């Protein structure tokens, strides 16, 4: 399926391809395309790609790793939530990419008599923001029910573009 989707992506925009994709089992999102190993939907929103054998694209895997370094100490393993902070599986079903970016970068606060919670502003945290698309697509895959809990068993190799982006983001040559 991975290959098929890839080809469909390259063939681009064809209604036929979209029709084909919509018939695919869970795991494929409608109309997405791939560039240098990174997938996005028709409107340019980053998304995941999971092959029929469970192989995930690099960015989804990277998102798994970064989530479990930066986010899980509050939001629990696999986005499942904890006694400390809410799970993200439900909210990511409806939250837009733009809203996700806003909350991560600027934080969010709920201060009531019965509840004091605070999501920190992570906008200046390179360990989060340099991988924000990765974390987004990972959580989106979890929310869409196409990626089981735990470490993805198989993944694509790290694309050169990811390496390049990482260095640029951390201000390295």
């Amino acid at each position, binding site marked *: 399926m991975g290959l098929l989707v890839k080809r469909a992506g390259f063939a681009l925009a064809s209604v036929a391809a979209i029709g084909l994709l919509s018939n695919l089992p869970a795991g494929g999102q409608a109309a997405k395309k791939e560039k240098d190993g990174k997938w996005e939907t028709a409107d340019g929103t980053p998304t995941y790609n999971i092959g029929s054998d469970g192989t995930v694209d690099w960015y989804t895997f990277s998102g798994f790793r970064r989530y479990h370094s930066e986010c899980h100490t509050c939001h629990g393993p696999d986005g499942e939530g904890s006694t400390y902070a809410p799970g993200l599986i439900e909210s990511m079903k409806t939250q837009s990419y733009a809203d996700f970016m806003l909350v991560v970068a600027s934080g969010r606060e709920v201060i009531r008599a019965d509840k004091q919670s605070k999501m920190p502003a992570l906008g200046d945290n390179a360990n989060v923001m340099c991988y924000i698309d990765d974390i987004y697509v990972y959580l989106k895959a979890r929310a869409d029910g196409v990626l089981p809990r*735990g470490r993805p068993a198989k993944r694509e190799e790290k694309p050169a573009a990811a390496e390049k982006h990482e260095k640029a983001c951390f201000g390295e040559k």
Partner: protein
Amino acid sequence: MHKYALAGASLVLIASATPGAANQDVLQQSAKPEQWVLQTGDYANQRYSKLDQINRDNVKNLKVAWTFSTGVLRGHEGSPLVVGNIMYVHTPFPNIVYALDLNEEGKILWKYEPKQDPSVIPVMCCDTVYRGLAYADGTVYHHQADTTLVALDAKTGKEKWKVVNGDPKKGETNTATVLPVKDKIIVGISGAEFGVRGHVTAYDAATGRRAWRAYTLGPDSEILFDPDKTMSLGKPVGKDSSLKSWTGEQWKIGGGTAWGWFSYDPETNLFFYGTANPSTWNPVQRAGPDGKPIDQKWTMAIIARDADTGMAKWAYQMTPFDEWDYDGVNEMILADITVAGQRRKALVHFDRNGLGYTLDRTTGELLVAGKFDPTVNWTSGVVMDKSSPQYGRPQVVKEYSTFQTGQDKNTKGVCPAALGTKDQQPAAFSPRTNLFYVPTNHVCMDYEPFRVSYTAGQPYVGATLSMFPAPGSHGGMGNFIAWDAGQGKIAWSKPEKFSVWSGALATAGGLVFYGTLEGYLKAVDEKDGRELFKFKTPSGIIGNVMTYSHNGKQHVAVLSGVGGWAGIGLAAGLTNPTDGLGAVGGYAGLRDYTALGGALTVFTLP
């Protein structure tokens, strides 16, 4: 009874041998078994009570006497204090303090609620827990999440003074209790996951003026180590013992915080504590200039310091160059026990790294180091041969070295997991059995380190880990064990479904109490761990069991309120990668058993 009488006599001797030393009030108050004036029960951290009204025969009749809701939902660690007819109850953030009148079934005498900036919440790694108050000389000492240390009048709750110990904007927070000793209050700091440079600090008990600060890392003058007089494994530590063990200036954001418990020995005027992990969790980023492991002193160490000056008498690093987040902060229990046929003034410590250590508390000599969970696999053991260049060092098993496996690679099946074979939940010691009663985790992990960059006040972690119940065992995630610290052997072990994240209490009634994450308060026989009583409290227990006596009746009290690191990792249940891709369900999720809510439950006999 014979042993018990001896222990009592030696305590009196210690107190009278050093008049004016120690905090006389703390010594006198903590010697009264009807009270509980320090979180740790006494300066020795034994968590042993001489009360024996509740015993092995009648504990089955234990009934709830009264309850109290704290009004706070987050994880409730620590325990209440009882001084005279007043019980002092603390909460996690926002760190409320209640003084309850025991003569009127817990009527609120006063309540203190500090105003704190909520931005401190997300810089507290792993829930906004707080391990409680300390009492000395008519004052309740309260150390808030935002590191404000407040002295409260014990009768009225009025502030006597307050002082700020750290900067939450840099990730410095507080979760620990304080140590009142002589004319000082000694406090620690949290935040190793944020690159905080750890320290302990002493404040004047009467005024709050800072007396001294001892960092964990850095120049000798700032870590208060004397190159010639501070000893480690029988030798002076030498010049720049910390600086020499770091690459460049990494020590400035190197972690080694002090967020655990303090104990104190009036005889030598030494206090003892442990230091946390080096930052980051990625060992590759912390390698020496030659690319090899480097010790990163004095993270992961037991340190003994003079209570007046803060100068270090001795130090012992348990996990040089940490590769697994095995903080060394767990409690140091002071007990006189027999080791290799000799009576020793021992310090016993159950480390996150899965080893139970017995040291001579006066000299720091290492006497015993043994695995207190048989599944511990990252080390083949500690070299005990004094002539070996590896003396005192744990030997790392290559297969489980996250450094040798390398960055961006997954090291599989490391036991214990990062939360340790035991975390902060304190063990108890009974002079009746000479055994230590230890709440433990039975969890392993996969660990993958990768590069991270440092931003002040932001998490500085650098590893992904997945945890799962110890494979090939009983399937549960915890054990409650009895440990012989003279021999380094497990005497008995009682399996638990979840990690045991509650501090234990041993009593002269022949009982040992602890709580479970599902919310049970349990009482077991000190001899064999046989369960004699259990009661399900309103929420999971991560607090410590305490006991007191009021109007001649013994009571047992515990805070419920699930949360903390245990609540974060275990709420959703663990996955076991060896079960195949993403298999879940075989392992219980805590959220199927309990929900949030702080509540105190007090038990007594009918």
